[in-house]
């Protein structure tokens, strides 16, 4: 065995991948860590600053096993905030790329396709912000069929594809249509005044969630979704059908979506739903979409109160 020093360091490998170049400028200020919500909401071990350090210190296996490598969803809020202008998500993506090459796999549970239902329309591939689903050809009963398949290492679990699939052929445990529909009250179960669909990332402070939970259950019900991109307009209409008087969908501010552009998909869907309400002669204010920014602490209370009083006005008018 020769003990010649290796000239190719882990850092140089990462730097060779576009986006990884400025990694060594990091002076560990911690801005990225606190700008990101993953450590607070998902995994206390998540820490981009430490991952960058691991790369610089040549700790390859540690970096491949670190949750940071796999949990970053490339929302780029840290890139805007980084005083050294390091494109952190690109560095992490570069590490992830090397990790996948080395045979490591993502610990996240990806969406899966029900091949019996899939029609191969390709909508999931179009809406996915991470290019996880792709179409492939398969011989079924002697005929060549087009089907969707999901790259497990690319899927971040936002559920945008689940909300978009016309045949409910794609899904992940926790966000399937049946599971969400189960949370929507039925006419028999005394529906509340307002049902809120809350994106898991939009309420930054824990206090905000507490505000929401402080409303009595006969007034406000909460349905958690991973991203407003997951929203299916059908669910909003189902809720109205069951006797709920209003639906509030709460997502992130434009540019702050945790899954790159899930809130953009939601904006489109909710806009369409708005015009649909008009065609059905239903009051527009019954369904509302609000986008809450990172600094809008306490805004959720105003939104819910405003919605409740608007619904009261509608009731009076009727």
């Amino acid at each position, binding site marked *: 065995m020769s003990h010649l020093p290796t000239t190719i360091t882990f850092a140089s490998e990462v730097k060779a991948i576009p986006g990884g170049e400025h990694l060594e400028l990091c002076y560990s200020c911690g801005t990225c860590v*606190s700008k990101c919500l993953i450590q607070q909401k998902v995994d206390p071990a998540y820490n981009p600053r430490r991952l960058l350090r691991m790369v610089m210190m040549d700790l390859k296996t540690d970096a491949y096993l670190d949750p940071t490598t796999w949990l970053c969803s490339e929302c780029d809020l840290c890139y805007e905030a980084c005083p050294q202008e390091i494109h952190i998500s690109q560095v992490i993506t570069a590490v992830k790329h090397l990790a996948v090459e080395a045979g490591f796999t993502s610990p996240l549970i990806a969406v899966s396709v029900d091949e019996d239902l899939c029609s191969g329309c390709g909508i999931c591939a179009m809406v996915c912000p991470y290019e996880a689903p792709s179409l492939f050809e398969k011989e079924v009963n002697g005929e060549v069929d087009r089907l969707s398949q999901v790259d497990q290492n690319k899927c971040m679990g936002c559920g945008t594809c689940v909300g978009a699939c016309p045949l409910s052929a794609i899904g992940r445990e926790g966000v399937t249509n049946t599971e969400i529909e189960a949370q929507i009250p039925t006419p028999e179960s005394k529906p509340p005044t307002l049902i809120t669909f809350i994106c898991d990332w939009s309420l930054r402070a824990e206090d905000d969630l507490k505000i929401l939970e402080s409303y009595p259950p006969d007034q406000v019900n909460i349905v958690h979704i991973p991203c407003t991109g997951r929203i299916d307009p059908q669910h909003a209409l189902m809720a109205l059908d069951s006797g709920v008087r209003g639906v509030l969908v709460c997502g992130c501010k434009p540019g702050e979506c945790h899954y790159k552009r899930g809130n953009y998909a939601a904006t489109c869907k909710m806009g369409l739903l708005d015009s649909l309400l008009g065609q059905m002669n239903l009051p527009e204010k019954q369904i509302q979409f609000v986008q809450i920014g990172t600094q809008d*602490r306490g805004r959720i209370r105003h939104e819910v109160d405003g919605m409740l009083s608007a619904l009261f006005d509608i009731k009076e008018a009727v």
Partner: protein
Amino acid sequence: MVDAARQPRIDVRTYTEVDKVEGFVGNFKVTLREKAKHVLADRCNGCGDCAKVCPIEVPNYFEINLAPRKAAYVPMSQSVPLIYNIDLDACIHCYKCVEACGPLEAIDFSQEDQLVRENIGAIVVATGFGHFDPSVMAEYGYGRFPNVITSMEMERLNNSAGPTSGNLIRPSDRKNPLKLAFINCVGSRDKRYIPSCSNFCCMYSIKNAVLLKQMNPAMDITIYYMDIRTPSKGYEEFYDRAREMGIHFIHGRPSLITEDETTHNLFIHSEDISLGRVIENEYDMIMLNQAAIPQPDQNHMSSVLNVAQSPGGWYMEYHPKLRPMDSPTDGIFFAGACQGPKDIPSSVAQGSAAAARASRILHSTRWEIEPTIAVVWPERCSAETRGRACGLCVKACPYGAVVIEGDKAAEIITAKCHGCGGCVAECPEDAITQLHYTDAQILAQMRALLADKPEEKILAFRCHWCSYGGADLAGTSHFEYTANERGIKVMCSARMDSDFIYEAYRLGAGGVLYSGCHPQDCHYITGQLIGAKRADRLKKIFDRMGMTDGRFRVEWISAAEGDKYARVLNEMQTVLDNMPPEALKEEIEKLQPDMEKRLKRFPGVPGVPEAMAYGDTLVRAIKEQKEPA
């Protein structure tokens, strides 16, 4: 300040701007604009009766707009000289002040700005620094959240002469805050705004924390920092004291401030790097230690004073280590933060040094400079030969010593010339020469050095300040390098005329080294840049001509790099050794006509033909000595 104003030989001019600076060291002609105060200085006794009756209130700039002032005002109560000023932008011309002034009749609304021309021997610039506006950093909410304030606002709120008489209150409800946070490096050390460190913020945030803690030990104070920088004497001890007093230090740069809309309390989101955990803490009030930036009018003043600016916009010193208080223009000196952010002890030290340097000029009748100055032959300048001066010399001069007025020939202000020789080498008409480094003198050296077997020689052009020192060090350190090296010293790489290089190859030199200081280290500020640009051009020309790679080398060698000097020359020798002698000879002969073509105008330079003739006799003599007839 009062002492200075009372000293009979100090003339304090306030509310006065510098409009124009002409002339040179010892003989500056400065035009001052004495702005109209609308109050006669010799009559005002500073009683303040005008301000008492004035009905107009505007924000007081001196109090960072935290308090009002009248339209008839003094900037601060300790102003020297204590003369009131009528702010005509705010004044409604009610003339109550005129009435209040009474028999003194000090108020004169007809007063206008006056231009005064003064003869000045030396100038000390002490214009200080400006403040970064943190409202552009949306994440900290300055300007949106009332209880987020800047360090300058804190200085006023905490000052016994300030708007609250030193009673620290928070803007939203005027209650005394009990839980405070300071955030360091707001805008500084941030590539998006100010990439450099502001030098003194760590210390003043610790100072403010200690002061507040002394006033009220129950106060809970936290400092958020990226690095605490306490590099001077006693600073680390002060930091220790602050920690012992119970001030909290959190290592982590906050990424976000949010506000509770009812209490107006603030929440800081940051990582505690020591814990590796994201934390969110609630505070009554937050102070942002914003970056120090150059004064807003620093660019304008830099052109008025004709002094360059460093990256970042601060005034540039003559030399960062050896002459930090001198400007590149003789007779202009810097004191304090106008040259770069610095704290009070350093500013005082630099101010005293600048005053001493200035008094050296004021107390002497003669001003000695290096004798290697540049001189123009006006009849050769293109202004004379073609009717229009080309101006290349003006561009080459780092000191603004070359002046072209109208269609007259270029002129050099001797007192301003530092003798780098940049203009001499740049002049396409060979109309400028440098005393002691004339073309003829250098040519004579080249002829002598290349008299015998030139194809074996490597001619090394070295600058006086760096690469000559490097060569010297190589010698005194006994680094072995090729014996075929022949050195020629000039003051700066800017003086290394392309004609010399062509001439060296025409004479058959095997190799030529073009060496000088590293960029930024140049003794003549930008001399190296002029030299480097020319060297790049030459390298391209020789590559196009088909010269073997390595026969012309451009290297920047500092006085500490003796080893590099030896290595570069040995590498050049290897290049020559690897060429068969016939091939080298053939290449030299092939390139000779091209070199001659490029040297067409060289023999026209005064002194050059004589130097050439002398060289010819020298070569002949050497040959005769070798092969006696």
